[in-house]
């Protein structure tokens, strides 16, 4: 059946089988492979995308159910060549090791900060509790989100010569 949705601000229309899962639609139909596909069982959270601004596990949403909705993937985080503060935070605070969980983690973080610009560490941990980092790098992920919260207007350092600064986690949580 034919479905249309907005993905990262762009209108897309495709003819697909109803049984196609949103994660496969995004990766295979749209070629946006930044959304990862992990456990297939709604447990790992690496496939998280934002649907109308809310994090959802795209392995457990049918693409047809996203018809008419707005989807945001990791490719839609940066705007006009400027990294989202969350992306910047993951760089500053070493929020990724192997990187497999990172797209989902960053999108959940973006949604959290949109709702709650100043979450404490417990709120961040709660928000990402449905997502697994198999490198177990949770402490740095939490610090990365805190960095983003403390630098809501962070710019890509390549673009403005590192004006965002090299803040430490201590400063961020103080």
């Amino acid at each position, binding site marked *: 059946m034919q479905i249309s949705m907005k993905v990262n601000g762009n209108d897309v229309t495709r003819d697909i089988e109803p049984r196609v899962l949103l994660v496969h639609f995004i990766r295979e139909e749209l070629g946006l492979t930044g959304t990862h596909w992990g456990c*297939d*069982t709604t447990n790992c959270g690496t496939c998280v995308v934002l649907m109308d601004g809310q*994090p959802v596990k795209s392995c*457990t949403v049918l693409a047809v*159910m996203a018809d008419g909705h707005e989807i945001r993937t990791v490719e839609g985080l940066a705007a006009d060549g400027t990294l989202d503060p969350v992306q910047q935070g993951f760089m500053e605070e070493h929020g990724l090791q192997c990187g497999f969980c990172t797209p989902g983690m960053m999108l959940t973080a973006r949604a959290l900060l949109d709702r709650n610009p100043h979450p404490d560490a417990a709120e961040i941990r709660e928000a990402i*509790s449905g997502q697994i980092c198999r490198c177990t790098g949770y402490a740095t992920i939490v610090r990365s989100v805190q960095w983003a919260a403390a630098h809501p207007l962070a710019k890509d350092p390549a673009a403005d010569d590192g004006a965002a600064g090299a803040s430490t986690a201590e400063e961020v949580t103080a």
Partner: protein
Amino acid sequence: MQIPAAFDYERASDVANALALLERHGPESRVIAGGHSLLPMMKLRLARPDWLIDINGLAELDFILREGDQLRVGALTRHAALLESADVAGLFPIIRDAERVIADPVVRNRGTIGGSLCQADPAEDLSTVCDVLRALAVIRGPDGERTVSMADFHRGPYETAVAHNELLCEIRYPIRPRSGSAYEKVERRVGDWAIVAAGAAVALSADGTVEDAAIGLTAVGLDGTVPEAEAVLHGRQPQEDLFAEAGRIAAAACDPVADQRGPVDYKRHLAEELTRRALRRACARAAAAGNG
């Protein structure tokens, strides 16, 4: 890669349309809302519906309304909305207790109360919650609307009173003065199904004794509440030895099975201890409540 078997899909525009679609496509059609129970089963091919009727657009079923002496919750209400509702937290803290430990925040953005109840997994938390709150389920079908008690709603694991051509539309919770409720769950890891959980709801008399109590257990083979344990509480002052006695009765009444989540004696121990804790918190909340 887990992919569901092929099916046809149709989006319902309202409740009447959903019922017409269910009627038209027959018993091999299934309703999908959040999809977080049905889609995993379809991916494992444990469920193979010919038709999916998508009810996510039925805004008329997405509400939390305090009306007179009841709280009305639409079947399409997401877990996240229940968790965030001030009315729910104030009137029925047990719902908030349970919602905090149902899956994870991302899953709770999609999953619905109606879906959880209709899936009727034996380890599902909201069934126990609705049991002890003596909730009513409003079901609509081709012959109109009917309201059933939770005792009538439950038909065993994965089965409910909702027929294939019907739709669970609403849950109604009676609001009672001087009441309190609580849910206590032990799971292996965050977001997992319960090893065992206990729910309790109490209403106190003006003199502080227990006027009415309901106790339910999750994942230990118990249908409905534990009337024997509820009976010992009736008319008595809520205190520790009473909670312990009710816990022992509840543990004896349940029928857990050994599985990867633990052996029978461990689960029975949890049933006793969690019943005691749930009663303790429910009574403390009832004593503090001004929700008349």
